[in-house]
């Protein structure tokens, strides 16, 4: 391909890539309350989205923002909010209601260190909150973990596709590194990306619009999560569980050098990327190490990991005090799983991962 034919590349932060990706995927409504380290998302969308005919509202709080998302999602439009850790905690009530009411929507969490106000450095401490539901009741969000600015852009398309396919909240879980790192991206829709028209059509039988849109005497519609009649809530939950079971086929991961690996390192997001650098260096020294990087944290790509883990040593590296390692252990059963944690808020280099990786390789 000649230089002229190459898709145009732009130099952007991960947060800016999210904003471009959202708009290019067909975003119609965006609601958010500012919080570091994701402020580029609302700042960019405040200008970009109205230019594309969409609605931007700076909410009074994350509680307000997620409920605006609920309202717009209930209308069947492509809607999104973004925040960071503490703000996502405030959104959990609304996310639970969305899950219980089959309402699609995208929630970006460019997480920060915690607990509490924590710091604005990198952290993967929101893994549990993101993949275990986070709010009250038995519900799940699909969770995508980008590791580069390009993935921030591309995953917006995937997020909307999954949100509308399953009529469920989808979370993009990044952190300060993914959000703030500046690198070139191709601003073109990923291959096979659905059009917004197609996505909207997926929920046309389950959106509020005014009954007149369906005919003069059409029965009114209701989106709700309260089921008080005997057995009704049980039935609702069975339906949700069926949906979550169906999501398993959408589990995704990126593998590097897994074929002959004696050690499989499992890491996601920014840490997955740094781990990849460390592994490439060690490969040059002839060490047989591979990387398994989950792209969907929920559904967790456990079946694929089980296959890759067979007969190998496993090391989980994550920037928290031990969260994803539980899902890895559940996935691989009897295998011995080593774990290396990085405290939230620290910026680490690939060189700092060499020692723990070599140790795990030795076993």
């Amino acid at each position, binding site marked *: 391909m000649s230089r002229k034919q190459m898709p145009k590349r732009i130099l952007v932060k991960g947060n800016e890539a999210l904003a471009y990706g959202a708009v290019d995927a067909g975003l119609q409504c965006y609601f958010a309350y500012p919080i570091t380290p994701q402020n580029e998302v609302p700042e960019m969308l405040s200008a970009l989205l109205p230019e594309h005919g969409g609605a931007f509202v700076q909410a009074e709080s994350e509680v307000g923002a997620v409920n605006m998302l609920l*309202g*717009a999602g209930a209308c069947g439009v492509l809607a999104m909010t973004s925040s960071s850790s503490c703000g996502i905690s405030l959104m959990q*009530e609304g996310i639970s209601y969305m899950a219980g009411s089959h309402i699609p929507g995208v929630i970006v969490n460019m997480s920060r260190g915690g607990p509490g106000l924590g710091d604005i450095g990198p952290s993967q401490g929101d893994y549990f909150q993101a993949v275990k539901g986070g709010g009250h009741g038995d519900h799940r969000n699909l969770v995508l973990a980008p590791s580069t600015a390009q993935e921030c852009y591309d995953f917006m398309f995937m997020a909307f596709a999954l949100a509308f396919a399953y009529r469920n909240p989808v979370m993009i879980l990044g952190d300060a590194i993914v959000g703030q790192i500046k690198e070139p991206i191709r601003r073109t829709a990923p291959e096979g990306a659905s059009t917004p028209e197609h996505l909207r059509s997926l929920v046309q039988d389950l959106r509020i619009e005014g009954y007149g849109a369906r005919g003069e005497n059409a029965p009114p519609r209701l*989106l709700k999560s309260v089921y008080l009649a005997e057995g009704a809530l049980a039935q609702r939950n069975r339906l949700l569980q069926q949906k979550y079971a169906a999501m398993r086929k959408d589990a995704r991961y990126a593998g590097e050098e897994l074929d002959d690996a004696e050690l499989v390192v499992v890491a996601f997001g920014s840490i997955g990327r740094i781990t990849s650098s460390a592994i490439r260096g060690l490969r040059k020294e002839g060490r047989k190490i591979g990387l398994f990087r989950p792209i969907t944290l929920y559904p967790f790509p456990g079946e694929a990991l089980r296959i890759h883990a067979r007969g190998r040593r496993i090391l989980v590296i994550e920037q928290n005090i031990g969260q994803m390692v539980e899902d890895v252990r559940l996935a691989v059963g009897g295998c011995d799983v080593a774990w290396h944690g990085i405290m939230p808020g620290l910026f680490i280099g690939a060189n700092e991962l060499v020692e723990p990786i070599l140790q795990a390789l030795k076993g």
Partner: protein
Amino acid sequence: MTSANDLRPRPGEKLVFDVNPVLNERVTHYCPGCHHGIAHRLVSEVLHELGVAHKTILVASVGCATFTYDYFNVDSVEAPHGRACAVATGVRRARPEAVVFTYQGDGDMAAIGTGESLHAANRGEKITAVFINNTVYGMTGGQMAPTTLVGQKTTTTIHGRNFSNEGGPIRLTEIMAQLQGVAYAARCSLDSVKHVKEAKKAVRRAFDVQLAGLGFGFVELLSGCPTNWHMTPTAANKRIATDMIPVFPLGVFKDVGAAEANAVKEPGNA
């Protein structure tokens, strides 16, 4: 028993009071004498008269009014407790052509959802909020509300609301009227025929300003809760007149539409 024949006008008769098709035929879950039923009827009549039910979206709240949507023939969405005005904001921005209203009690709108309510109002969201003030938490069994009168006994103020410990009742209409985004703010009462008829006009205005694109329409309806006031419905009605109205004065506190209409009518302002 009532027969179908009784419901047909006889020669020389005219049906002068009937329900409208926006209100469906379900018998409500509300207690005997509860004013939610009157408020529902007024809202349904206004939607019917405006001819907008087919494009109306109701955002329901949490409390006794959670099941409001069971009684209206309009599309509806349930909001988490207190968040109806935020949900309505999302609905409004997603569907600019729709008529959007919330129906909220005093706990929902004036306690847990104060932030969402005031900011939606302040943004001038083109929505209508119907606010039911009965000075008590009904659904949970009669606890103190933000609107509970000083001295009023509830299950969490068993010696009466004590101002030095719990503060006094919030007057939401007065607060709403101060906000630039609010186009209409009125407080009415459902305790008498005269007041109910006035309330109907206020509900109508609260929708008119939305339809005219003037801003947030707000109407507070003083209502009785005989069950949690431990009174007969008749006594509850009297309490509204004797105890509530002196604390919550009735009236139109703001009407941007009327001000504009009057300004145009005045000579020289055309």
